[in-house]
């Protein structure tokens, strides 16, 4: 069975890849997808740490990560759909009304 540390490294890399996607892409849907990639990284880290401690709680928390991801996807996509209806574009640059 693989070393839990390996799991955590892969998780960390996944998280960072998600971060870069979130930072660089302008399409809101892809930005959301990038956050999902980050969730994958977090999930793997949770499981890895749980294994490291020899208990199953990491997996239990992983279930909640799934829940949060589902919630985030549902609400986020609803918002994206609404925004798309407003302006007809998915470009995140279009929504800068919070500029100071």
């Amino acid at each position, binding site marked *: 069975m693989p070393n839990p540390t390996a799991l955590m490294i892969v998780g960390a890399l996944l998280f960072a890849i998600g*971060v870069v996607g979130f*930072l660089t892409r*302008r399409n809101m849907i892809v930005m959301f997808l990038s956050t999902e990639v980050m969730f994958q990284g977090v999930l793997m880290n949770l499981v890895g740490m749980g294994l490291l401690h020899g208990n199953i709680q990491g997996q239990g928390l992983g279930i909640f990560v799934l829940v949060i991801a589902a919630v985030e996807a549902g609400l986020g996509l609803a918002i994206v759909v609404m925004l798309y209806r407003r302006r007809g574009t998915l470009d*995140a640059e279009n*929504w*800068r*009304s*919070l*500029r*100071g």
Partner: protein
Amino acid sequence: MELKTLAILIPLLPLAGSALVGAIGLRGLKDRSHWLVLAGVTAALFCAVSLFYQVNTELNRGGSETAAAIGAHAQIDPSQQVGYGKLAESFTIYEWIPAGAADWLNVTFRVDPLTIVMLLTVLSVSTMVVMYSVGYMRDHHGHAELGYERFFAFLGLFVFSMCMLVLAGNFLLLYLGWELVGLCSYLLIGFYYQKPSAAAAAKKAFLVNRIGDFGFGLGILLIYLTFNTLDYQEVFNMVANSKMAGDLALSTERITTIALLLFCGAMGKSAQLPLHVWLPDAMEGPTPVSALIHAATMVTAGVYMVARCSVIFAASPIAMWIVGAIGAATALFAATIALTQFDMKRILAYSTLSQLGYMFLGLGVGAFDSAMFHLYTHAFFKACLFLGAGSVMHAMAGEIDIRRFSGLRKAMPITYFTFLISGLALAGVPLLSAFWSKDEIIHAALASSTPWLGWIGLVTAFLTAFYTFRMIFMAFHNEERLPRGVEHAHESGVWMSAPLVLLAIGAVFAGYVGVTTGHGGFLGMFEPHGAFHHFLAPNFSDAKGHEMTVAAAQGVAHGAGEHGSESHWLMWLSSGLAFYGIFNAWYFYTRRPGIPLAIALASGSVYKLFYHKYYVDELYDLVFVRPLRRLGDMCYACDRFVINGILWIIAAIPRAIGFLLRGWQQGAMQGYALGMVVGLVVIMWWVLANA
């Protein structure tokens, strides 16, 4: 059913009705909202009756020995645990609040004779009043008033709260019920919340009650500090044995403090002298509310509480003296005010105050069972009087000033007769209910170590008869006059008159449970300690057995045994006073209507003093309200200028910083995210470097 089931059902049935009405009344039930509450309260009444039969059977069987001993008023050794035996049962329904390591403050119900007497009183009057409200809360076309369902929901909630108060098995739950009934009272006084006077009255009632409840709460805390428990039975046992928690001896000062603090709550709830101001104003609520809450049930909670804690009070002669004195003072004081008022409901309110004063007088001289007896009889006739007044009010289109109308006797025969009967009962005319109960109290007072209380009671009895019949003669006799805008008076419908009749029957016959022996019929009529007292005896055995009040108890026993011979003069005197009062009222208000005016003019300032209720409200306004308002103004100014200024300065700093930093915010989320990531990395790197 088992006792426990019944005890749970009694509060829950009205609550269920109330909750249902509250939930679906506005949408679904509307005009039919009353059914659920009526059903709930009636069912609870049946439960209470069933409870009564079970406990009564038990009393006659198992508890007969002790009860017999108490009934004969034998000397009882205080150290001996006499009394409740099987007659009182506590049921722990639910573990409520953890108190200490293993202790819980539980939701405990206690069923004993006192509880049952209260439950029967409360629920039977409630049933009547709910029935009455069905007719009362409608306009002349039979349409429900605005807020009909709200009214019944509140009414059901009140019945629930009152049952909780009565059934409570420890002081904390008692406090809960106590506050709940206060809340219901507030809600119902302010039922017509569009009326400024009603809203103000509700607020006043609430605030004045707070003062009393503050003392009450302190009393409960002190009980907990002293005895380390709040359970009735444990506390009473310890008091009876003069023990504190940890087997220390209980000092009289401590017990006096507890009793007085508890009495403080009773003063608030039962509107005794310094805190009486809210009750007359509470008449702003709908009349059924006045009848139920502010005459028959809630205001007697204080009496009930003192009777419940009779052991504590009996252990402190000073507290007993204060209770009796305040009761007597209130009785006289309220009666004098009632002489001069013209608002029917207000007269009745002051009469209620006066009668509550009687009850406290009785409690103060150690005649706990007599006080409870008076509470019980009073509930019927006073509720009937209030409901009669409501009936008049209904017919007079809301007019209640007895100067504006007269001679309603022909137009409203049912109302008139029930009102008359109840009035006779209130006046203490022989063979009606209050005669028995009031005489008992006065008798006990005269026989006690403070006989002057009894003399005050006698004077008040005369005044009572006078003001009651002043009202009756002014409203129902003489030639028929109607207020402007009312074409003709009419009798109320069956929903309203049926409860009147039933309550009037109660007003006549309720007293006989106290004078018959339960197995002797009318022959035992003149033995004041009848079935009622026999039934309640286990509750007060501890208190009466206590050496402090043995004298008083012996006095009652003495009188009880030989009422016929030695105390006849008291009976004759009190009935004579009653008849004399009635005669005076008749003479002044039907024969020579000029006399009252002449007296009023002649007495001048005294009349004014009575008329303006001894200027108590004005005094309070001057002493408390205005200084407090000044203080509030000062606080407001302080808040406005000092604190707001400081806040403005504090807020100005981030505003300035924000002004400087505003340019950095470019509005694109990803820019912020980049900043977050960089910050995260820096922090993590920092942590790692220093790890």
